[in-house]
C-alpha cells in the first residue's frame, strides 16, 4: 500500500510538473511573441502572420458547427473548406434544425423560418437580414443568443468516440465467449482494464463496494484517454479542452459521490468526529466546500492540461512559419515532436488522474470506519 501511494504521488508530481512547464512555456512563448512585436514593429507581413496564427490557435481550441479538416485559398482567390457540415439544432421559440452549411463557415447569414442567424466566434447569434452583430465595450456581442443544442464538431466526435468504445469493448466482451483469454484487441485492453480494477478501484474503494463503480471508472478512463489521443491527431478535434465536457464528467463524479455517500461520509462533513465542538462548527462549511472543490479540481485539471498542451504545441508549430529559416523551423519541429511525445503521456496521465481521483472520492463516500482518529 505505501508503495502504491508513492507511485500515485509520483504520477501527480509528473502531471503537475508537465502542466507547470507547459504553462511556463506558454507564458514564455507569449513573452517571446511580444518581444518580437516590439523588436520589429511595422513589419506588416509578419504581424499579419502572427495574428493569423493566433487566430488559428484560438479557432482550433474552440468548438465549431462544421467538421472542417483544413481550408485553403484556391487560384481564383476563393476560400475552399474541406470537411462536412453538421446539423444545427436551435431552440428559439420552437425547434429549428438546419445544416451548418447554411452559415458558409460563418461568412453568411442563415435564414431559417423567418429568423436570421449568424456565427460569430463559432457561436450562433440572432441577427437581422444583413447579419449585423453589435459589440459592447468588452467586444462581446449584444445580440440575442438562441439556445444552441447543435451537433457540433465536439458533439460529433464524442458520439464517434462513444461508438468506437462500444465497438472495441463489446467485441472484447464477445471474445471471452470463445475462451478464457481475450483475442485481438482484448489482449491489449485487458491489462488496462485489470489495472483499473486492481490498482485504482480496489485499493481506493475497497473490495466490498468497488464493483458498483467499475462501469463509470472504466468508461471515464477510456473515454478521456481516447478522446485525448484523438486530440493529438491532425483531425483537429479537441474535446477535452472544452470546459463544458470536463464539467459534465466532473459533475457525474460529484453526483455519484454525493448519492453513494453513507452515514459516515456525511458525518465527517457536517459533524467531524474526534474534534472539539467549536472546531466541528468551523470544519463543517470547509468540508462542505471541499466536496465541491474536489470535482472542480478534476474539471480544471483536465481542461487546463489539455488546453495548455494544445496551445504550446500549436504555438511551436506556428513558430515555424514565423521564423521561416531552416534553423528556427527545424528547431521548432524538434520541439514540437518532443512535445507531442509528452502530450501522448499527458493524454494517458490525465485519464489516469481523473479515474484515480474519482475512485478516491467514491472510496471516501463509501468508507466505513472507526471513529478512532
Amino acid at each position, binding site marked *: 500500500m505505501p508503495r502504491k501511494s508513492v507511485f500515485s504521488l509520483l504520477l501527480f508530481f509528473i502531471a503537475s510538473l508537465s502542466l507547470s512547464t507547459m504553462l511556463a512555456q506558454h507564458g514564455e512563448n507569449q513573452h517571446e511573441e511580444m518581444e518580437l512585436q516590439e523588436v520589429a514593429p511595422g513589419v506588416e507581413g509578419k504581424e499579419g502572420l502572427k495574428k493569423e496564427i493566433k487566430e488559428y490557435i484560438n479557432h482550433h481550441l474552440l468548438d465549431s458547427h462544421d467538421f472542417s479538416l483544413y481550408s485553403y485559398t484556391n487560384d481564383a482567390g476563393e476560400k475552399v473548406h474541406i470537411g462536412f457540415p453538421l446539423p444545427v439544432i436551435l431552440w428559439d421559440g420552437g425547434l429549428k434544425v438546419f445544416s451548418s452549411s447554411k452559415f458558409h463557415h460563418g461568412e453568411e447569414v442563415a435564414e431559417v423560418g423567418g429568423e436570421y442567424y449568424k456565427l460569430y466566434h463559432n457561436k450562433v447569434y440572432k441577427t437581422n437580414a444583413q447579419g449585423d452583430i453589435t459589440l459592447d465595450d468588452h467586444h462581446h456581442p449584444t445580440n440575442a443568443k438562441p439556445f444552441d*443544442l447543435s451537433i457540433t464538431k465536439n458533439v460529433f466526435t464524442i458520439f464517434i468516440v462513444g461508438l468506437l468504445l462500444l465497438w472495441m469493448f463489446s467485441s472484447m466482451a464477445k471474445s471471452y465467449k470463445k475462451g478464457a483469454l481475450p483475442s485481438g484487441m482484448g489482449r491489449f485492453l485487458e491489462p488496462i482494464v485489470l489495472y483499473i480494477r486492481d490498482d485504482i478501484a480496489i485499493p481506493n474503494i475497497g473490495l466490498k463496494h468497488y464493483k458498483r463503480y467499475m462501469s463509470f471508472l*472504466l468508461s471515464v478512463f477510456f473515454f478521456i484517454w481516447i478522446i485525448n489521443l484523438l486530440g493529438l491527431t491532425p483531425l483537429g478535434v479537441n474535446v477535452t479542452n472544452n470546459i463544458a465536457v470536463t464539467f459534465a464528467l466532473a459533475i457525474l463524479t460529484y453526483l455519484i459521490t454525493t448519492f453513494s455517500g453513507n452515514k459516515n461520509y456525511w458525518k465527517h462533513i457536517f459533524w467531524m468526529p474526534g474534534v472539539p465542538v467549536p472546531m466541528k462548527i468551523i470544519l463543517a462549511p470547509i468540508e462542505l466546500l471541499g466536496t465541491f472543490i474536489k470535482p472542480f479540481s478534476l474539471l480544471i485539471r483536465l481542461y487546463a492540461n489539455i488546453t495548455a498542451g494544445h496551445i504550446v504545441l500549436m504555438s511551436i508549430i506556428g513558430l515555424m512559419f514565423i521564423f521561416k529559416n531552416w534553423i528556427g523551423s527545424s528547431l521548432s519541429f524538434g520541439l514540437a515532436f518532443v512535445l507531442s511525445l509528452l502530450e501522448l503521456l499527458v493524454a494517458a496521465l490525465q485519464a489516469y488522474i481523473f479515474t484515480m481521483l474519482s475512485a478516491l472520492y467514491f472510496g471516501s463516500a463509501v468508507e466505513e470506519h472507526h471513529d478512532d482518529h
Partner: protein
Amino acid sequence: MDKLINEFSFGLFFWQLLLFVGLVLLLRKFAWKPILDAVEKRESGIEDALKAAENAKLEMQNLQADNDRLLKEARAEREAMLKEAREIKAKMVADAKDEAQVQANQMIEAAQSAIESEKRLAMTELKNQVATLSLEIAEKVVRGELSSKDKQMDLVESMLGETTLN
C-alpha cells in the same frame, strides 16, 4: 475565469452528459459486465485449479508416503520370510543330519550285532568241529594205543606213574 464561463457551451455540456451517461449504460451492459464477469470467472477458475493442484500434490505426497511405508513393510516382511526360510532350511538340514546319524548308528549297531552273532555262531561251529575232530583223533589214537597189550600196559603204567607222583 471570465473566459471560462464565456467559453462554457451549454449545448456541448448537455450532449456530453447525455452521450456519456448513455455510453456508460451501454458499455456496462455490453462490455464491462461480461468482461469483468469473464475475467472473474477465469480468475476464480485459476484459483480453483491452483488449489486443486495443491490438493493433488498433498494427496500425492500422502500416497508417496503410503507407498514408502508399504514398501518398507513389504521389504521387512520379505526379510523376515527369508530369515524364517533360512532358519527352516538350517533346521531341516540339521534334522536330516541327526536322523541320518541315528540311522547310520543304528545300522552300524545292527551290523555289529549281526557280525557278533555270526562270529559267535562260527566259533561254536568251529568248537564243535574241533571237538568232533579231537574225538575222532582221540578215538583213532585210543584205538591205536589199545591195539596191542603192551601198549595198553605201557599206558597203564605211565598213567599210574603220573598218579603216584601226584
